């Protein structure tokens, strides 16, 4: 199972994500939405990424939701006060509003975090290529993904270059910030400078060929993907119907 889910075709998993996002938006209340956190957790456990899923969720969605919850409940003025403490007043409408709002963030955030933990960007790119998306668009997406680790390593080398020319980059936060800001210019500059040579590299690899490209490691839909996609679509339609209209 730990290998089964990550190996599923990206769109199979995307159906689930899409279904959950739509249901979370349209189904009233907050119980369904909050339960998605648990659903995604179970999926993450089945996919063998429970630890990373939980840590990422706590670091991002949980903090954002908590923040919104506090602001909405205690600071935004509402009627129907059900309790107060100094200047903080809790109202039932405020509580309702924050619960509904944060539950949607939790649901959408949880399922997306799970999705990106079990789906590689290059598989998404492969699926896009299979579906006949524009080659340049896919290229931009892939190179952007590579750009982030690349920029980080470039920052480190430029920091090294500055340190060896007498700039203090070690020490407290202020010293580090001071050396960080002037570094941004060179980082951008260097990556632009290197682009020209990279264009020629791509040309040498037949990038401008108009024929449809192939994939060295093909990513294809299996029977399981077709079957699962339909099961997911039907279940999600069912939930949507029961949740919204009943």
């Amino acid at each position: 199972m730990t290998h089964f889910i990550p190996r599923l075709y990206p769109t199979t998993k995307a159906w689930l994500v899409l279904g959950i996002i739509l249901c979370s938006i349209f189904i009233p209340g907050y119980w369904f939405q909050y339960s998605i956190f648990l659903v995604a957790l179970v999926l993450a456990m089945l996919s063998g990424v429970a630890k990373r899923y939980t840590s990422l969720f706590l670091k991002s969605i949980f903090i954002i939701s908590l923040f919104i919850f506090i602001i909405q409940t205690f600071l935004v003025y509402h009627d129907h006060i059900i309790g107060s403490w100094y200047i903080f007043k809790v109202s039932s409408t405020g509580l309702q509003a924050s619960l509904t709002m944060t539950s949607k963030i939790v649901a959408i955030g949880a399922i997306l975090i799970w999705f990106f933990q079990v789906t590689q960007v290059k598989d998404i790119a492969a699926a896009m290529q299979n579906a006949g998306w524009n080659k340049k668009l896919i290229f931009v997406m892939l190179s952007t993904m590579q750009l982030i680790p690349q920029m980080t390593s470039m920052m480190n080398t430029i920091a090294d270059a500055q340190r060896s020319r007498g700039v203090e980059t070690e020490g407290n936060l202020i010293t580090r910030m001071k050396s960080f800001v002037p570094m941004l210019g060179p980082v951008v500059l260097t990556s632009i400078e290197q682009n020209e040579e990279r264009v020629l590299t791509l040309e040498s690899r037949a990038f401008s060929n108009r024929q449809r490209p192939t994939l060295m490691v093909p990513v294809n839909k299996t029977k399981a993907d077709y079957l699962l996609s339909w099961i997911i679509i039907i279940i999600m339609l069912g939930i949507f119907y029961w949740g919204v209209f009943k």
Partner: protein
Amino acid sequence: MNPLIELNDVLYRYPLTRKSALRHIQFKVTSGMVMGIIGVNGSGKTTLCNVIRSFIPNFYQGDLQGTVTLKGKPLNQYSETELSQLVGYIFQNPFTQISGVKDTVAEEIGYGLENLGVSSKKIQKRVAKMIDLLNLSDIKDKNPFDLSGGQKQMVAIAAILAINPEIFIFDEPTSQLDPAGTTKIFKIIQQLKSQGKTVILVEHKLDLMMQYIDQLLVLDEQGQQIAWGKPEEILASFTENQTIALPTATRVYQRMAAQHLIPIATNKVPVTQDEIVQTIQNFQETR
């Protein structure tokens, strides 16, 4: 038969400059030949490679005069795709020779073939062969960005070899490599030659280069072609000076001649280690 590559009175000026980067370049290369280009830095060696691959004028503007033909057909009648299959170009700087979209070395090597629409089975077979040929199996699953300069250079070479073009341009391929890596590259050039490929090689390691080339083009500081022909013949007309570097064999020979140990030859000089060893042995016997 048409020569494979033919340049006729080529002159080129970069945009916004007055001085020409290349002038009066004129030579014919037949199929299966290994051609060397030498000249000091800034003499236009890379520029010339860019002209032969038509990056000039397709990517660099400027004023290009004269004609360049591949297989008797002018360069501008080729599409970019045809050129990428006909001429493989290995660049000088290893750090910008990574596509930036592949996260394993194996897929990086197969990228060109993907763009050409080759079937995945064929790509995998070809890539496996390249990995084997260049001994890259230790790093085949690594991210290309995490490699050293020398390793990146090897991967770039593998990526071009995978496309299997007819003509190879190597622009200082060994400048970032250690002796072991350098030897490996020259062995590849030797193999390409035995497969009947045509190679254009820019290199500063003259002693090594001379063992592999059939023809030599010499550029001066102004980008002007000052000699073209068999290295042992054209280097006979040069003495050690500021503008043209000479291989050790030729330098030893000329110093010996200058010191009257041997007669001065005007039409042919030793350029490789083997040749100078022969000369010295002859000299030792006459003593």
